[in-house]
């Protein structure tokens, strides 16, 4: 009887230990799995007006069922699929964005369809899971020129794709927008569609330029699936002249004081120091009187 009780207790103890151990480790595994947040990378490609290219990655994560940016995370940028040539490394800013810019010195690797493949990766850390993204774009170029016919001023934009053999393939049925840069952002004045690689829009003659009347025009293919964002710009003095009046400002916050203040100070100081000069002259007269007595 005793032996049976002991063996039963022993069995129960062993099973308990086993269950506890299984439960503990399972819990840890689950905890570890739940602890790391998922991240998501978005990648955009820009071909800039100064003939440089920019890759911009945005890293986000979910917190309390909301998508939030992930700042201060290292992002690796590659050219090619599956960790090809490392183009650069950048740290995400407060908006979760990181970017690298490169020029035409970088030898572009295309696939058989003529796409440039870019790949970005976030390697993850104790808090966040790793993530990656790739984007495939074709090289596109824009060229802007200006012409005037019968006093009508126009902008001619030519757009083409750089083919695998280096040939220029005109872009067709691609949306393009035209902007002028203002103080804080770009002002869109026309949106059009490329036809056979060309687009003509009327020049905005009612927008003021700088002091010389120069206006900067920016043309952009925005966020195209095939080409990313491609832009170019041109400058011409067809804008209305901006009259800049260079006059000396006088105020409390300026270098020069208000005129009324200057005049008041001069009058007051002249009045007071004039009295001093008179009195000092009087003292001189007293001194001179002594000499007369002598």
């Amino acid at each position: 009887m005793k032996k049976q009780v002991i063996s039963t207790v022993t069995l129960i103890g062993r099973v308990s230990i086993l269950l506890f151990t299984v439960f503990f480790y399972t819990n840890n595994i689950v905890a570890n799995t739940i602890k790391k947040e998922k991240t998501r990378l978005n990648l955009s490609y820009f071909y800039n007006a100064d003939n440089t290219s920019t890759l911009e990655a945005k890293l986000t994560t979910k917190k309390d069922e909301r998508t939030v940016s992930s700042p201060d995370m290292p992002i690796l940028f590659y050219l090619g699929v599956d960790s090809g040539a490392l183009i650069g490394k950048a740290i995400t800013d407060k908006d979760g964005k990181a970017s690298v810019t490169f020029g035409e010195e970088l030898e572009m690797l295309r696939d058989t369809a003529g796409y440039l493949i870019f790949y970005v990766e976030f390697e993850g850390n104790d808090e966040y899971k790793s993530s990656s993204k790739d984007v495939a774009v074709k090289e596109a170029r824009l060229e802007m020129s200006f012409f005037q016919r019968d006093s009508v001023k126009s902008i001619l934009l030519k757009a083409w794709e750089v083919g695998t053999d280096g040939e220029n393939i005109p872009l067709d049925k691609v949306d393009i927008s035209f902007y002028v840069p203002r103080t804080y952002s770009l002002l869109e004045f026309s949106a059009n569609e490329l036809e056979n690689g060309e687009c003509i829009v009327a020049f905005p003659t009612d927008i003021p330029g700088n002091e010389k009347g120069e206006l900067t025009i920016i043309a952009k293919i925005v966020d195209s699936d095939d080409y990313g964002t491609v832009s170019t710009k041109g400058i011409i003095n067809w804008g209305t002249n901006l009259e800049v009046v260079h006059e000396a400002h006088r105020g409390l916050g300026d270098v020069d004081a208000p005129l009324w203040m200057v005049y008041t100070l001069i009058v007051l100081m002249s009045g007071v120091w004039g009295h001093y000069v008179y009195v000092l002259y009087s003292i001189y007269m007293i001194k001179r009187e002594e000499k007369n007595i002598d």
Partner: protein
Amino acid sequence: MEIDIKTKEKLSKFSHHLETTSVPGKILLGVLLLVIAWAFYALLVQIIDGHIVTGMRDNVVWGIYIVNFIFFIGISYAGALISGILHLMRVEWRKPIIRIAEIITVVSTIIGPVYILLCMGKLERLPHLLLYGRIQSPIIWDVIAITTYLTGSMIFLHIALIRDFALLRDTPLKVGKWRQPIYRFFAAGFQNTPKQNKILDRSTDVMAAIIIPLAIIVHSVLSWIFGMTLRPGWHSTIFAPYFVVAAVFSGTGALICVIWVFRKAYHLEEYITQKHFEYLGMILLVLGALYGYFTFSEYLTSWYGSAKWELEVLHKLFSFDEYGWAFVFAVYVGILLPIVVMGFKRLRTINNIAFASLIAVIALWVKRYLIIIPTLEVPLLPMQEIREEVIHYTATWVERVLTFGGIAFFILFFFLFSKFVPIISIFESKDKKYITVIKKEVHVKETEYEETIEK
């Protein structure tokens, strides 16, 4: 210059003050020099270690240096008021005290701005005031005003001293020969001729007339350093007249204190009488009432407006855990005591008036402290700071020693002045016996004339 016997007699009463220094005087001189030496040591510590040795921090950027500056410029008003206004009104009783008032003006206007230099972190940038100063700044106005005021006060003091310098030049005194060239220079060739007297009287009238508006402008400009600042507790339109009245009040109080000291030390009971204390005390009473009115108006307006940060400042001032006791002393005791003393004839003794004046002067120093420090302790933006020395200002030993050093300098200047020139104008003040004799002579002559006519 011909000197009459009466004048010589009067000079002889003062000459021993110029020629000798009593034992108490030497002890005083020793103590003053010790304090000044200690102040120089404190200054050295401040220069070597920087302003960290003071209580000033990022929050409370001004401390008792600025308080002392305003205080000394404030008491300088004594000369402008007593000398200037009473001179233009041809008030006779001013004559024995006029010199003391003028010396207070000059000495305090010299000492006051020194505290600004002590407050400046980088003295090497001082020339920037002249090179890059913008006249839109109230600080530039203050520099211009105080420089002009000091120059005017010195000229005013000089022309008031010309006659006595001439007297000292022509009277053999048992003093060092080095004094003679100085007396001769500052006497400016005065020989007591009618023409010279006329020129001198006219110059004195001109300076008396200009020193009054100048003093008003100086104290107004001084107040605008605070009044023009957008800070609760400072940004007030009443600050200009408030400061002017406070200056006159403190200046009169300081003058009463100083004349009491000299009356005791130099036994000038014959010249500085009960009347002088009563008349100055009456001025103190009126100014105290006026100052109390301005104070009431200032705080009532702030309290009624109920602006958040204004109320924070008022809470600091009224709370006995913070500055409440100092506020009571500065506003109630400092204003009411002179009024009470002067209001009751029985209390109107020389010692009581002098004591009330001393309390008023100290109260006004405290009031200037309350204008500056509690206001600065209330931050314009919510402050996330926990260090006590940043949140609250406490004057360190360096600042206190330099304050005492300034007071010691003030007393020392006076002491040295009184050893150089008579502290009471010999020419201007008349001997009471002499006045009585003149009146009797006139009366006798008139009687003789009447008798002659009758005959």
